[in-house]
């Protein structure tokens, strides 16, 4: 998330959560690193680590042999292994495979000489927050430059040893090769390379695209065998000697506190060893544990049984009245009045309010509360002693987790060792370290290593939900059906309120997620936000506010097309308009562009149009379809990547089946082709779940859905034939994990309209077609 925020917004957040000293300290370090990408590298490579030839930059192995380590990610050992540290969390995107591909390709290393180590949470690695689709986007160039520095030094070392000019040598297959056929393995060059000065990162030559041997291709996942044999170690699988197992009874309503519970009954359960109370939580809830009562037991089952026996009585909460239907109505009421203008282009628009004349079209869209629901619920193992806390957790954001744990224990971040396991899915949930802090606190109270396991019910009841939203859009169109005015109002509680109770409308960050970056050629545009306060913790979920914004905008374009009697594909082309670069600042929008400079990562309508055309072509857009079938399309740029989705649906007896989905993707330079395809295939299913099935609802302040019977997500029989069409170009690397999701829901509802003539404006589709 840090990468998603404007820095000032992030600094603000830091100040607001500064009550936990550890968090503040750690986050400020992160902010410094974030504030200057070059500094990050300076820290890593600008220090004379490799040049001084002292113990600091050499790593000893065995009898004083020298390894070569020109930075924090790369070490060449004398036994010819190339040790790479992966500092980003693996949660299904394949980063533990694609990161070594970047380094090995640029170095000229062999794939089979790599050993991969997972880095612990430590600011020395730069940004580790595996969120915002940033792992490749933010590290493609730093990793290539680091690898090129290492390669240059190895070649320089070989030049010395062979007495040949550096320019005559090349690095390939883990060796430096001379024109006369002589070669030296990387491992034989470590001692000499370690005596050399580190070249400036801008002084080293990078490989040309046509010389890539790995980047842009595919490799088997480094964790594949572990996955298929059950040997992969996730947070759920973390173990320490003497470990205890804990579950927590948390307040069923945010803000409630435990007032009474039956410790004796819980202790009477075979295997239950302790009952401990966690500190009560106060707003802002931020990343803090929610409080409650924990059961510590000798195994998971005993802990779960013990919790049932606890019979906790809870205090009242100010949020007891939260009811999701009434809450939706309140958002809709807010959406009826003028809000805060976040973008105004041309003369703006008031068409939502005033004009009832000819050529005015209006619609209201709704997206419910959603839960990330990774298959592995939140889980963490911690061992807290007087001086140290050892953690193993499935965390997306190890540095923040480390800072939060340190703050909760009154320790310095350096006293917390944050080990990152494989993540059984993340989707944004595991960026929030509340569950990790729970483990650290319970371990301290139980004086033993403790693994805290969240049940599925815990995950659904105590989440950081994707915000519920109501949006209204109105347009005024010309005679030919093209819009001359566009007026959009988006109302939802902000993620920022979770960190600052004073926040009362969508933040700059959130309006930059598919709202004010509207890429349409419409002369008069006005975009507003409305006030909303949340009775729950709100958090980010795969593609965040792009979900509701792409749904509303993508649906409304389709509605305008049908009103105009035009083919939706042609209409999309018309509203996208001429090839050009769009800058929301032209309309005085304060746009964060996913933390990237507009010069290098512009909003390019030519690329948007290209993926739209590609998806339509591959889907067979203009084909005749049988009765009850239809095709819909939508296109959206998010995380600086362009994705168009064409969906083909069949509706029979009120039941939708999505027959096929074509995803056309321009994410710029990609690293692991098959993983990009896989992320898009997965995004199609994630988006389909939100479109058709998923919603979180609440009554009396409590979440109603308990498990996967209530919170439905797509199963195998709902799987469309999914085809991914990847544009291969040399544009700056864009995000991959998230941008596939936003265009899926609008494409599906547009297809449903084509099939049935029924317009779905509220997600999920659920049973709406059978009524």
């Amino acid at each position, binding site marked *: 998330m840090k990468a998603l925020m404007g820095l000032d917004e992030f600094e603000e957040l830091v100040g607001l959560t500064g009550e936990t000293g550890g968090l503040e300290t750690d986050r400020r370090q992160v902010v410094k690193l974030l504030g200057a990408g070059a500094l990050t590298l300076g820290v890593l490579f600008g220090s004379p680590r490799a040049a001084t030839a002292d113990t600091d930059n050499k790593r000893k192995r065995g009898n004083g042999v020298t390894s070569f380590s020109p930075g924090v990610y790369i070490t060449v050992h004398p036994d010819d292994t190339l040790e790479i540290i992966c500092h980003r969390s*693996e*949660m*299904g*995107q*394949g980063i533990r495979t694609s990161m070594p591909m970047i380094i090995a390709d640029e170095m000229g290393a062999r794939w089979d000489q790599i050993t991969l180590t997972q880095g612990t949470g430590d600011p020395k690695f730069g940004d580790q927050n595996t969120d915002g689709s940033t792992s490749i986007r933010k590290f493609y160039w730093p990793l290539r430059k680091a690898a090129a520095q290492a390669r240059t030094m190895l070649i320089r070392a070989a030049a010395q040893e062979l007495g040949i000019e550096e320019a005559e040598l090349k690095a390939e297959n883990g060796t430096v090769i001379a024109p006369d056929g002589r070669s030296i393995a990387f491992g034989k060059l470590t001692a000499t390379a370690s005596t050399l000065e580190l070249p400036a990162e801008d002084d080293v030559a990078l490989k040309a695209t046509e010389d890539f041997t790995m980047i842009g291709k*595919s490799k*088997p*996942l480094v*964790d*594949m*065998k572990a*996955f*298929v*044999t*059950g*040997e*992969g170690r*996730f947070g*759920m*699988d973390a*173990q320490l000697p003497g470990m205890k*197992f804990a579950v927590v009874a948390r307040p069923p309503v945010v803000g409630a506190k435990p007032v009474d519970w039956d410790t004796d009954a819980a202790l009477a359960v*075979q*295997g239950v060893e302790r009952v401990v109370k966690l500190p009560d939580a106060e707003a802002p809830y931020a990343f803090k544990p929610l409080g409650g009562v924990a059961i510590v037991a000798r*195994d*998971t*089952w*005993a802990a779960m049984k013990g919790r049932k026996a606890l019979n906790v009585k809870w205090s009242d909460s100010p949020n007891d009245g939260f009811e999701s239907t009434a809450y939706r109505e309140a958002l809709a009421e807010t959406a009826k009045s003028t809000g805060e203008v976040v973008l105004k282009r041309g003369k703006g628009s008031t068409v939502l309010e005033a004009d009832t004349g000819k050529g005015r079209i209006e619609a209201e869209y709704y997206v419910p509360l959603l839960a990330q*629901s*990774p*298959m*592995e*619920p939140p889980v963490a193992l911690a061992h807290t002693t007087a001086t140290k806390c050892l953690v193993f957790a499935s965390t997306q954001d190890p540095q923040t987790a480390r800072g939060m744990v340190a703050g909760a224990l009154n320790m310095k971040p350096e006293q917390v060792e944050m080990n990152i396991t*494989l*993540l*059984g*899915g*993340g*989707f944004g949930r595991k960026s929030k370290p509340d569950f990790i802090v729970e483990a650290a606190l319970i371990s301290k109270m139980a004086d033993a290593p403790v693994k805290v396991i969240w*049940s*599925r*019910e815990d995950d659904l009841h105590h989440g950081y939900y994707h915000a519920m939203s109501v949006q209204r859009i109105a347009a005024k169109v010309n005679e030919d059906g093209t819009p001359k005015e566009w007026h959009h109002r988006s109302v939802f509680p902000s993620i920022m309120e979770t960190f600052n109770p004073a926040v009362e409308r969508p933040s700059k960050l959130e309006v930059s997620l598919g709202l004010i970056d509207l890429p349409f050629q419409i002369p008069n545009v006005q975009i507003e936000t409305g006030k909303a306060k949340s009775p729950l913790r709100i958090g980010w979920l795969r593609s965040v506010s792009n979900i509701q914004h792409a749904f509303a905008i993508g649906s409304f374009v389709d509605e305008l097309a049908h009103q105009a009697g035009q083919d939706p594909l042609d209409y999309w082309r018309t509203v996208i308009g001429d090839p050009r670069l769009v800058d929301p600042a032209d309309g005085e929008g304060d746009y964060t562009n996913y933390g990237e400079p507009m010069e290098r990562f512009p909003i390019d309508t030519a690329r948007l149009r290209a993926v739209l055309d590609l998806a339509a072509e591959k889907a067979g857009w203009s084909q005749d379809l049988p009765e009850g079938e239809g095709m819909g399309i939508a296109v959206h740029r998010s995380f600086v990547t362009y994705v168009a989705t064409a969906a083909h649906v069949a509706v029979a007896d009120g039941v939708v089946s999505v027959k096929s989905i074509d995803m056309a993707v321009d994410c710029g330079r990609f690293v692991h082709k098959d993983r990009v395809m*896989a*992320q898009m*295939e*997965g*995004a*199609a*299913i*994630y988006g389909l779940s939100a479109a058709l099935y998923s919603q979180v609802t609440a009554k009396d302040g409590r979440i109603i859905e308990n*498990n*996967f*019977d209530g919170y439905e*997500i*797509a*199963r*195998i029989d709902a*799987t469309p*034939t*999914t085809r991914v069409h990847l544009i291969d170009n040399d544009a700056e690397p864009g995000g991959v994990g998230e941008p596939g999701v936003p265009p899926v829901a609008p494409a599906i509802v547009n297809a449903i309209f084509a099939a049935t003539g029924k317009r779905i404006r509220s997600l999920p589709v659920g049973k709406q077609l059978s009524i």
Partner: protein
Amino acid sequence: MIKLTVNGTEREFDGDPEMPLLWYVRDHLGLLGAKFGCGAGLCGACTVHLNGEAVRGCITSVASAENANVVTIEGLSDDGSHPLQVAWSETAVPQCGYCQAGQIMQAAALLNEKPNPSDGEIDDAMWGNICRCGTYQRIKTAIKSAAGGAS
């Protein structure tokens, strides 16, 4: 004292007979391949074989496995060479990997019963196994590939 066989080894358990097999194999035997996803038989991440049939370890008590033969992903093959494990690797099915042991155990039980399942039979057999990463298309491909290879 409950006696059962797990991956070919005879075991005795004198704890809570209601304990689900999932927590028995994970917390007491250290077999960590079967995963916890829902605790209610709704997601299939915990799937193991009980006398050759796929069952949900999270809602199957140790008592109900008395004298039975339990196989977890660790016992499916010695070295990851089961045709489904090979097909899973070749098709690059897993994303996060968490649900995949359960998916493979479910698919293995299917192929034992129906060596060449139709699309509908695959959907029916695999319906109870959720993958939040959305790898279903590749799961179908891998099952067909393994089935084709076996026939």
